[in-house]
């Protein structure tokens, strides 16, 4: 019974976590905009959310580096001591001499877009909570 009430909250909770994760990835890209050789990282939110909600354990997210579904996807990259990375690589738009692939315009747009969607998810959660509370109170 309670499970049915919180089902919808679970979905939005997962979405909120993924939004926070993406916000962090974009913040890292912006921080490394001047680092030589840095490769911008990102993931497709829709694919990640689908995988999380299909199986409750998050698997490796779809790589963005493949432009065609028939391409063999690149193996997930490893950074530092972590396990297999769940992040893909952004496509390079404007080549630069120091091999940095951060496109500042795109990152800023993605950052603002992600922030707005994060807030939207928060409002969905708040709305759900209000609906359930008024159902419990029966007023």
């Amino acid at each position: 019974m309670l499970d049915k009430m919180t089902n919808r909250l679970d979905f939005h909770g997962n979405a909120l976590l993924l939004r926070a994760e993406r916000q962090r990835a974009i913040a890292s890209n912006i921080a490394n905009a001047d680092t030589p050789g840095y490769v911008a990282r990102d993931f497709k939110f829709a694919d990640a959310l689908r995988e999380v909600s299909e199986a409750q354990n998050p698997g490796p997210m779809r790589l963005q580096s493949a432009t065609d579904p028939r391409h063999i996807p690149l193996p997930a990259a490893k950074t530092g001591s972590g396990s297999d990375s769940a992040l893909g690589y952004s496509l390079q738009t404007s080549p630069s001499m120091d091999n940095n692939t951060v496109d500042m315009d795109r990152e800023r747009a993605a950052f603002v877009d992600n922030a707005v969607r994060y807030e939207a998810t928060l409002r969905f959660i708040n709305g759900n909570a209000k609906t359930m509370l008024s159902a419990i109170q029966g007023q």
Partner: protein
Amino acid sequence: MSMFSIFNVSGSAISAQSQRLNTVASNLANVDAVAGPDGQSYKARQVVFQTTPMGADSSAGVRVSAIQESNLPGRRIHDPSHPSADAEGYVTHSNVNAVEEMVNMISASRSYQNNVEVMNTAKTLLLKTLQMGQ
């Protein structure tokens, strides 16, 4: 809370960019410095950025890995009346390129602003998250 590490990431970028701004300031301050008695003039300094992992996989900060001195020859200007002129009448100035430094300064300050904006957005989002369910 995964969003809190945004402050670490952007903070590292801000400190790296301000260090870059510092070297630009010392380069510009010494743009007209002449060689001292040892014949060595001021050499332009440049910071080298490096990505540094910060705990989670998706957060990558920045650090200054080295400060390199430029090995370009200094500007030589013919001025026999100058007290530091050599036997041929040339004065060796520093090898700072003022135009390059100005571009460097603008780029550093823009990157700094970008990271401050990222931190402000992250703060707003976290505050709204704290009010969840109210």
